[in-house]
């Protein structure tokens, strides 16, 4: 019966295309740039996948929360004072305050959690499934870069407010991969690092503060050629990229070994040693938990999100060029919202996850034949 309905829909579409000329197409209303319509099939599959993950997160003890699509710009700036402002879709509301479509969920979650933490709730395990909006360049469209277009996407994630320590990090990584398995994705790999190690390492070997910022921006963008050129112009004379690559938390002595190559004039700072110890402990705990096979450390991996203070990670699946999940620890973000609590979280990029599933199990977006 379902197949007959699909065939009928296909025939109607064919007949419709023949009846409607190109002049008439031009009269149809435009879809705003970057907004995503979800027709039958796609919309249903996205909702099914979203619900599957949310149910799994609920079974694992997370309560679903929600908030509006706008935030005051001041709220977003509390989270990222040096944020990518050009990516935010902003305007002024009736009261004259600047508002923006939320580009991510973490600042909204921090805003919502702070009053509860302040009133004595020490632990919150929340999940969410919401649309987020970022202004992106459109390189293939002539001159659209001047105004940019907005990209709407769906994030399903968790935030653990009050979760501290390496053990919480390991549990979060386990949750990320168990949710992917629940969603039907058999193969995924996570790359991990620590938000503070690359900056502290570069400072410890004698790179000036201004250059550290430039080098970190290049690491974040993966512009390794430019990184090596810039590093080569410093008093350190390069070798920084390969030094960072040699830092292996599974081999605790690798930090000392790398510093030996820079000579006696430099040594790791106490902050760097403390951050390194966290990562070494994480590696050991991951090995005990059987997570090591699906995860690798790479200290050249850096994210440009200022609020991260510890673990950072991205998860990848075959056939999709960008991460399907991103996350990290942000122990000082709640302070910016009037409370104090460690926190860690991650978000799945749902449309990327759908793409990964499609390639993995032959899923099709054609109406009527999709299955999840």
């Amino acid at each position, binding site marked *: 019966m379902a197949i007959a309905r699909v065939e009928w829909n296909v025939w109607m579409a064919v007949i419709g295309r023949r009846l409607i000329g190109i002049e008439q197409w031009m009269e149809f209303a435009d879809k705003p740039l970057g907004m995503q319509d979800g027709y039958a099939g796609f919309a249903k599959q996205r909702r099914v996948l979203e619900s599957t993950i949310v149910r799994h997160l609920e079974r694992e003890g997370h309560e679903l929360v929600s908030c509006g699509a706008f935030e005051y710009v001041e709220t977003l700036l509390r989270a990222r004072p040096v944020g990518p402002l050009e990516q935010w879709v902003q305007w002024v509301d009736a009261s004259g305050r600047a508002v923006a479509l939320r580009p991510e969920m973490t600042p909204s979650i921090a805003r919502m959690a702070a009053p509860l933490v302040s009133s004595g709730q020490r632990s919150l395990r929340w999940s969410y499934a919401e649309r987020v909006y970022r202004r992106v360049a459109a*390189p293939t469209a002539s001159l659209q870069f001047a105004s940019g277009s907005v990209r709407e996407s769906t994030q399903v994630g968790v935030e653990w407010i009050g979760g501290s320590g390496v053990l919480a990090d390991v549990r979060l990584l386990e949750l990320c991969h168990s949710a992917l398995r629940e969603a039907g994705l058999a193969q995924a790999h996570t790359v991990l690092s620590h938000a503070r190690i690359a900056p502290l390492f570069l400072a410890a070997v004698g790179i000036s503060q201004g250059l550290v910022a430039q080098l970190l921006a290049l690491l974040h963008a993966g512009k390794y050629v430019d990184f090596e050129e810039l590093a080569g112009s410093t008093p350190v004379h390069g070798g920084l990229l390969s030094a960072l690559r040699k830092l292996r938390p599974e081999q605790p002595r690798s930090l000392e070994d790398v510093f030996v190559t820079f000579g006696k004039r430099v040594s790791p700072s106490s902050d760097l040693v403390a951050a390194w110890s966290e990562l070494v402990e994480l590696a050991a705990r991951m090995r005990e938990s059987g997570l090591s096979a699906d995860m*690798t450390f790479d200290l050249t991996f850096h994210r440009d999100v200022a609020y991260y203070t510890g673990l950072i990670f991205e998860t990848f699946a075959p056939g999709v060029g960008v991460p399907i999940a991103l996350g990290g620890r942000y122990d000082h973000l709640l302070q910016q919202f009037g409370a104090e609590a460690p926190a860690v979280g991650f978000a799945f990029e749902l449309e990327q996850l759908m793409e990964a599933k499609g390639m993995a199990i032959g899923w099709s977006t054609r109406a009527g034949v999709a299955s999840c």
Partner: protein
Amino acid sequence: MLTVALAKGRTAEDLVPLWRESLLPCPEDVLSSRALVFEVDWPPGERIRFLLAKPMDVPTYVFYGVADLGVVGKDILLEQERAVYELLNLEVARCRLCVAGRPELAAETPQRVATKYPRLAESYFRRQGQVVDLVELGGSIELAAVIGLTDRIFDLVQTGATLAANGLTVFDEVEQISARLIVNRSSYRLKSTEIATVVEGLTAAVRRRRVHA
């Protein structure tokens, strides 16, 4: 399987000898055949696939993950700003990104500029404090200045012979350009062993060329 997207034309022609010097597998007829997809055995028991694509499309194939690696000019990476990782300067397909025009207009304030690189051109002239009309063209950019459609062109210059043959001259060199090895963020993590082998081979070949230069 590892998939490598190569920018057709001069980039691929300059790259293939370097690729062979790096002792990596390369289809015999990749430059002579009209086919767009080639496969050879590598590493043992597996295959490596080469795609020949329009240069402007190479970062797109890599970004979306249908190609793991790509070889493309830095000019296109600067123009598109795709979120792909840039692993290696291959030091082939060298040229210059230049502003050029008819010599008699050199002292005039630029009004209208023909280019394949609207983002870079807009940024360059804005940095100069100049407001110009940009005319985006797909090829033969010199023609726009020759017939008076624009008073400047913003384009790649290799030897300068085409400019000279059309009575144009370089006013400013904006950037030195060469081919780069790029990879998408996912393949960089998921196929790290194969990609490291490619990078090591090419790095050694580039260094050998530097020594013999």
